Structure formats: C-alpha cells, structure tokens
C-alpha cells in the first residue's frame, strides 16, 4: 500500500513537471533568455552604422554604452529621464497612497450608496493610459480645461504650462551626483558600524567602518581631486511639466489603492474596533494607531505595484505629452526613440537594462520576501 502511494506520488510529480514544463520553457526563453539577450546587446556597438541591415555587424565593447549614458556628452536627456523617473515614482506613490487611504477611511463607515462611490473612485483604473492621456491632454491644455477653473470664481485664468513648462525646481548639478548619493550611504554605513560593534560583531563593524571612512574621504578630499564625471556643469531637477503626468497618474490609480486599503480595513476584526473604542480612542486615534499599522502588508504590495507602474509610464506620457517632450521624459520613451528612431540598438538596450535594474531594486527583495512567506 505504502509503495503504491509513493509510486503515485512519484508519477504525480512527473505529471506536474510535465504540465508546467511548457510554461517554464516559454518563460525561460521569453523572459530570462530575452533579458540575457538584451544585456548582451547593451554591451555591443550594434547600431553605429548599418544597424538596420539584415545581419548587422556587432562588436563587443563592454560597458561603453553605460558609461556614455551617465557621463557622456550627449545623454543629458537620459540623465534627466532618470531624474524624472525618481520623481514620478515618489510622487505617484505618495499621492496614490495618501489619497487612496483617505478615500478608504471615508468609505469605511456606514456610507449610503457605498457601491456607487466606490465605483466612481475606481473607474479610472479600468481605462488604458492611452485613453487617460488623450483626455487629460485636453484638460491640461494651456488655455483651457483646468487652467480655466479659477475663472469660475471670478479669478483670472491660470497660466501654468502643465506639460510644456520648462521650469525646474530642486535642481542639482550632475557632477555632484556621487557626493549626493554618498552622503546618505555614508550615514547608513556609519549606523551599521555602530550597530554591529554594539552587537559584538567586530569584523562586520570594522568593514562598515572602513567603508564609511572611504566615503568620507571621497566627500571631503577626493571629490576635489578626481576629475568630475562630467566635464561641464549640468543641472537636473524636478521638472514642473511632470506634474500634469503625475496628476493624471494619481487620478487613475488612487481608486486602486483605495480598494486595497478598504479591503484591508474591512478585514480588521470588529473586536479590534470595539476594543479601541472601549479604550477611549477616538476615530482619528483608531486609524492612526491601530488601523494603519495593521494594513502595512497592503501598503507594501501597493508600493511594489505602483513603483513598477511608474516605470511603465510609457503609454501615459506618449499619449499625454508626446514622445518628443523632453521635460516629461522617461527612460522607457527614450529607449523606444533611441532604438527605433535613431537605430542605436545597443544604446537603447542599455537604457532598457537600467530601467530593468531600477525595477529589480524594488522587485527582487519583494519576490524573496513573498517567496519566504509562502514557504513558512
């Protein structure tokens, strides 16, 4: 009996593998294989001349394309794109999370016609970025739409250039980028040094200490000796033109975070609410002290999903601001233009890889985290 069971198990296992084998092969090739190919392409010079030939000539050139992107003369646009991406992600996250949570708390009380309200807050989510972009382009045109709102209150119309503004705030010089990145990094390693020493993990503490000192050395001395990464000053910052895109993005996705949070808040037990009330907590205290900390896993999921959506803003920007609008630029669009309009395949591939690495920074820790959770 036991033998037959284990035999069936064995057979079932083989069947299972057989069933998922096509998926594994397809995903293996079309995702992992292709990522590998693109990484390889990014290390070649495909596209320098006759890039469009049937069998283009490629040479392996190492990391040259990446060096160009970050320190080359002509890729200023790409550097601004990366800066934009950071701001897109931050604002989209902050906006949708805050607004979504706010809406969820509003609806998390006996609201009449709750279904209707929920539907209306969530409907933008069902639309495509192209539809949203098309409609918002009309809303954000300089002489109409949103800019006319003040006139309803007898005020002069607003002149803000939503998608075509060239104003940039919070600017920094790209030459100072290492310093800017190293300061928080240095603080982190300093913290780790002390923590490890306090925990009596001496070797680790010393390693972190050395790193901290090296960073400090760079910030104070080396920075002025080593030639800067760019031969000229180059300002990057938060382009005000991105605000229109961000607004449309928040409009589209705040309903989504609302739905997530609402489900989370509903999932909290009545007894929890009851206990809080008995403790004399008012509504604000209940949400601040009890509800919000309890929906933390939802916040984590939402952060992951939204961060990855903000890396996929291609469609929205394409439809709302146009591919050639540098002020609202995004690496995804730059990659498309570099690859398919300028025929610089290798350069385009390296942009794709950077985009991918940015995404992976969010996703891999999340994947490992959820993998562990599933296992235990």
């Amino acid at each position, binding site marked *: 009996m036991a033998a037959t069971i284990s035999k069936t198990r064995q057979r*079932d296992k083989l069947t299972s593998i057989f069933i998922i084998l096509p998926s594994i092969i397809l995903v293996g090739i*079309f995702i992992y294989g292709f990522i590998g190919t*693109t990484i390889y392409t990014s290390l070649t010079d495909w596209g320098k001349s006759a890039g469009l030939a049937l069998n283009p000539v490629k040479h392996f050139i190492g990391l040259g394309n990446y060096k160009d992107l970050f320190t080359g003369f002509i890729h200023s646009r790409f550097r601004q794109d990366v800066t934009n991406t950071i701001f897109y992600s931050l604002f989209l996250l902050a906006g949708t999370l805050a607004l979504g949570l706010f809406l969820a708390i509003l609806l998390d009380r006996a609201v009449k016609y709750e279904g209707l309200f929920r539907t209306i807050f969530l409907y933008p989510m069902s639309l*495509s970025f192209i539809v949203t972009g098309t409609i918002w382009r009309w809303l954000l045109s300089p002489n109409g739409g949103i800019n006319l709102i003040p006139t309803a209150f007898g005020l002069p119309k607003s002149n803000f250039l939503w998608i075509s503004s060239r104003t940039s705030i919070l600017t920094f010089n790209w030459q100072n980028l290492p310093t800017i990145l190293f300061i928080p990094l240095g603080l982190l390693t300093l913290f780790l040094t002390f923590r490890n020493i306090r925990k009596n993990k001496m070797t680790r503490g010393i390693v972190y200490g050395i790193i901290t000192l090296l960073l400090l050395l760079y910030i104070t001395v080396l920075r002025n000796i080593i030639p800067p990464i760019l031969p000229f000053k180059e300002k990057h910052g938060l382009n005000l033109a991105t605000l229109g895109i961000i607004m449309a993005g928040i409009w589209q996705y705040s309903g989504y975070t609302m739905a997530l949070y609402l489900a989370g808040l509903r999932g909290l037990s009545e007894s929890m609410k009851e206990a809080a009330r008995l403790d004399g907590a008012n509504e604000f205290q209940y949400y601040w002290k009890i509800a919000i900390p309890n929906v933390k896993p939802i916040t984590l999921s939402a952060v992951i999903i939204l961060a990855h959506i903000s890396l996929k803003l291609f469609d929205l920007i*394409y439809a709302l601001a*146009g591919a050639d609008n540098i002020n609202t630029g995004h690496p995804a669009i730059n990659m498309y233009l570099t690859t398919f309009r300028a025929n610089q395949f290798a350069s385009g591939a390296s942009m*794709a890889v950077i985009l991918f690495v940015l995404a992976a920074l969010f996703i891999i820790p999340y994947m490992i985290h959820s993998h562990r959770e599933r296992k235990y």
Partner: protein
Amino acid sequence: MKTQNVKRIIFYIFLVLLIGIYLVPMYMALITSLKEPSKINLLTSWSFPAKLNFGSYSRAFKLLKTDVSNSLILAISATVLSSFIGSINGYVFSKNKFRGSEIVFTLLLFGMFIPYQIILIPLFQVLKSIGLYGSLGGLVVAHVIYGIPIVTLLFRNFYDQIPGSIMESGRLDGAGYFGLYTRLILPLSIPGFVVVGIWQFTQIWNEFLWGITLTKPSANPITVGLSQLAGGQAVSWNIPMAGAFLAALPVLLIYIFLGKYFIKGLLSGSVKE
C-alpha cells in the same frame, strides 16, 4: 443628535464633491465629443454643448473599426488561452506541490514585474524569425506568454482557498490526477475564470507598447488606433474624445457590471489572503 446630522450632511456633501472631481475628465470627454467641431473652443471647454452632435461617434467608429475588431479578436483569444494555461498551472502550484515548485513559482512570478522594454528587441527578432511579426497572431503569442506569471498567480491564490479535504475525499473516491482536476477543480473554478478573464481582457485591451512595436497598421489594436487619432493634434478634438470613449467602453461596461470580480482580480493580484 442634531450636530450628528449636520456632520453627516457635510460629510456627504464632501463625498459628492470628491466624486465630482473624479468625474471631471469623463465629463470633459463627453461634452467635447458631443460638440460640433466648429463649436469647440478652449475658452468654452467646460460648457455643455448647445446642440448635441452624435456625428463624432459614427466618424470615430468608422476610423477605428478595424482596430476595434482587432482588439476584440486579440483580447478574447489571448484571454481564453491564457486562462486555461493559468488554471492548469495554478492547479499544479497549489494542489500538487513538489520539491522546488516554490522556487519555480517565484521565478515565474518575476516576469510579472519587469518593464517590457527589456525584452522588446529580442521579442521582436523572435516573432520575426517565426513569421509572426506584424500580425495579430504575434500579439496573441506575446500576451499569452507574458500573461503566464499573473494568471498562474491568480489561479494559485484561488485554488489555495479550496480546502485540501475536498481533494482528499476525491482521491478516496478513486479520482486520479486529471480526474481531480476535471471533476473537482474545474467546476469550482468558474469564479476564478471570471476574475482572470476580466483581468486579462482589460490588460490586453489596454496594452499599447507591443501594439505599436509589433503590428502592422492592419493589425493595430485600439490603443494604437486611438493614439493615431489623437496624435495628429488635430484641431477638431471631438473625434479623439469620441474615440477615447469607444476605446474605454468595453472595459467600462465590464467594470460597471462585473465590478465585483474586477476588484477581486485587482486585490488577489497583490494582496495575499
């Protein structure tokens, strides 16, 4: 008691104001699409048309006809295919775990989050070499393959809710591997299929990047058609707005009538129960 009522009223007024804000873009699209082209003016962009003109819709539909039918064929066939793949995969990962299946599952899931630019160039070359570039078929293949991670996840989460005891009793009744799937799991899967179907349909209907890079004009999906319509920055905004409505219509209808499942899809895509 009275202050309570006043508070309640203020609360509702506030809520109604909020939904007003959320509805503004739809309102603008609607009134603009119903205006006569000559009456469209930025300065009066908020005002309701004096005379309703439904002509824009028939014109937009005429311009987008092939794109709409392409998108329908694409979305339906890719959705059906990937739902079945998802169902059988989910069955394996949920009910027939084996050593290493969790790692394989995690590796599959990873594909859900990648920015598709990273696979664009090789995808292109491969579709070309198998002769599917430019056609709807190529797009179906792309959507089915890159849909594997999400559909597998959705179905796995769904099957995780089916208690193991049902499986056990099925086994005792003598059902084998596939017997359990066809007789026990599939009949219980209908809500799962609805959730996955809705999710995939809206995703595929709304997709743009592959549409613009992998198809010829004759196989363009609706998103590409709409961007063409609006991309000219033509002066007559009624057509793109009507087009936007047409492009939004199927997913909006699904959302209004099957919203419950849509939200379920949204939630199970990210929140683990």
